[in-house]
């Protein structure tokens, strides 16, 4: 095991050691090869911020450079460089999201070009009001042909305030050669006539209903799933925040103890290059985190209760 100065990697070693010692299930000497776990990190989501001078954070060139190194790492880690696991090149995606990001459309395009050249699909998630105010930039970006999917977030106030424009926007997007996902409360969409649109009805669409009342109801009734889905398998992908810090899932973004590294680091110096870190991540993927059932509460943030509890446990470790 190589020495490391990365505190995160050190933490993971401690965490892996502690978890293994506690369960007795996996002796420390028996680490899973990086290959097994690496396949889970085929995609990355960037939570971007726009700076006042019209640049995005992290910068487009830093993202493009990092995606390139992630690709090289992935080829090596899953064995493609040695002629194995070539099928693991499927379904890789770079997702770009953040408030007001269309104002940096050229930067998004730069990232998209670099990512598509490496075989990644590229998705952009934007809120509908921003899309309407930056309609020209959105059209320009889509016309470049590098964006494969768009996620459109429609708040109830946007639907009520700009209904007809939103219907026209959805009609136009539904006719583009892209995958379209709509994240919204459905009631207001019915009210403004989105569901009656022939163009929307004929398109292949994915809707992600937002249920603003669900969290409140869950808290009031203390409703929690009796048997949550524990494996993190379906929830795992890399998330990179505006500061360039890398996390293994959305639920752990911002939790220092779960930070895999930073895009400024060489990948071999991050958790992705560390067998014990990858062992822990592999265990989370297959069995879920070590969070006892009694710690699970009614979810309050929109995340699954297990993710909320896991986040709490790691923050507590961090504070100790």
């Amino acid at each position, binding site marked *: 095991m190589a020495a490391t100065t990365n505190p995160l990697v050190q933490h993971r070693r401690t965490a892996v050691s502690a978890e293994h010692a506690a369960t007795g299930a996996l002796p420390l000497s028996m680490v899973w090869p990086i290959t097994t776990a690496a396949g889970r990190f085929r995609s990355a989501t960037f939570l971007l911020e726009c700076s006042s001078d019209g640049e995005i954070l992290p910068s487009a060139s830093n993202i493009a450079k990092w995606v390139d190194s992630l690709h090289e790492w992935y080829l090596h880690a899953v064995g493609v460089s040695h002629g194995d696991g*070539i*099928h693991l090149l*499927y*379904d890789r995606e770079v997702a770009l999201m953040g408030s007001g990001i269309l104002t940096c459309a050229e930067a998004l395009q730069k990232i998209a070009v670099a990512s598509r050249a490496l075989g990644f699909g590229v998705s952009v998630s934007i809120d509908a009001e921003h899309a309407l105010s930056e309609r020209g930039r959105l059209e320009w970006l889509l016309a470049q042909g590098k964006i494969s999917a768009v996620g459109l977030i429609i708040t109830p106030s946007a639907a009520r305030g700009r209904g007809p424009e939103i219907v026209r926007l959805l009609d136009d997007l539904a*006719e583009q*050669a892209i995958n379209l996902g709509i994240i919204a*409360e*459905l*009631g207001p969409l*019915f009210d403004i006539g989105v*569901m*009656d649109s*022939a163009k*929307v*009805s*004929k*398109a*292949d*669409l*994915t*809707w*992600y*209903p*937002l*249920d603003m*009342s*669900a969290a409140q109801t869950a808290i009031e009734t203390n*409703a929690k*799933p*009796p*048997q*949550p*889905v524990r*494996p993190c*398998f*379906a929830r795992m992908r890399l998330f990179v925040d505006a500061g360039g810090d890398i996390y293994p899932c959305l639920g752990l973004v911002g939790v220092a103890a779960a930070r895999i590294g930073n895009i400024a680091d060489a990948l071999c110096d991050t958790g992705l290059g560390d067998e014990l870190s990858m062992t822990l991540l592999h265990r989370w*993927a*297959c069995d879920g985190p070590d969070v006892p059932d009694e710690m699970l509460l009614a979810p309050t943030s929109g995340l699954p209760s297990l993710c909320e509890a896991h986040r709490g446990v790691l923050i507590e470790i961090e504070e100790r």
Partner: protein
Amino acid sequence: MDHIADLDARWEFLATMPIRYNGLVVETTNRCNAKCGMCYQSAGPRGSDVLGSATIQTDVLKRCIREAVEVPTLTPRFHLAGGEAFIHLNECFDLFRTAADCGYLDITGTTNAYWGNSTSRATQVATQLRECGVTSLEISWDYWHMPFVSAKAVSNALLACRDAGVDTNLRVLTTRSHGLSEALSALDPIAMARTNRISSGPVFPTGRAAKTIPREDIHASKSGIGGACHATLNLTVNSFGEVFPCCAGFDQTKNYLFGNIHNESIVIIAERINSDPIARTVVFGGVSSLLPILKRAGIDLGDDYSNICHLCWTIFSSDKSVAALRAHVDARRQRALEDVLKSLEVTEVSA
């Protein structure tokens, strides 16, 4: 020239590219308690209108589920479908449990949610599904399901799944005269809001839809017939035990078969699909690349197809088309063999 070189490199690469699957799909039965006008399987209480009735024994399926984890390019996702597989609920629970024990990480199924008629029954089924390891359910609901399953049952099932911790994906199909609004507005708004996902899209004119829905009512697809399906495949066992590389129509045909799980391991059959020239052409080259071959054989299928699945189903439903494809492959093999023999003879003489 660069373009041609690129294409050559692409084909060279694809010649060895393994076919990859997003999961194992098992269609346990083609019997269904509904008989929907848009059903691509033509399923009903007496099985498929086209293929007849079939249900696979649970023991055979359990062996198949255990064996399939050895298919190297299979994503660890198990999906149970029908017909309406849930008419045999205890068998479904058993199969889900087997999949969970074998290490599949995503365990899913498709149902019309008929079992949600009462809230207590919906809760009981959803809870038991979760206990068996089910992570998510696809619930089919649209205009054509309405005569057979109540909106209340679907709403109850959505809410019960939410409470049990089973994610749901509501699947809604549309035509020009039966849009999204008609289907969704029939459901309880609270239940609909608590589904994790709604996938909506147009009916394909395949199976019963090809016979019962007027062609002009079916939306033309924006995707056309130019693409290939290599990114969207599932290793599929149909209710006769036949194995196919997808569950989008090819699985409802009987003229070009790869192997049956009653007779051999699904691992062997998956290897056979991977080396089959016609399957590889469809998967990587796109099904429309079969059209010139068929045309040369005097079969002109025209170009009135909604999408690649519609064209694929049409080609492989026709014994005449399949015979022409087989003849083409056999002739190519024969020519290749003759070329190799000739080149070996030349090498021998010069030696």
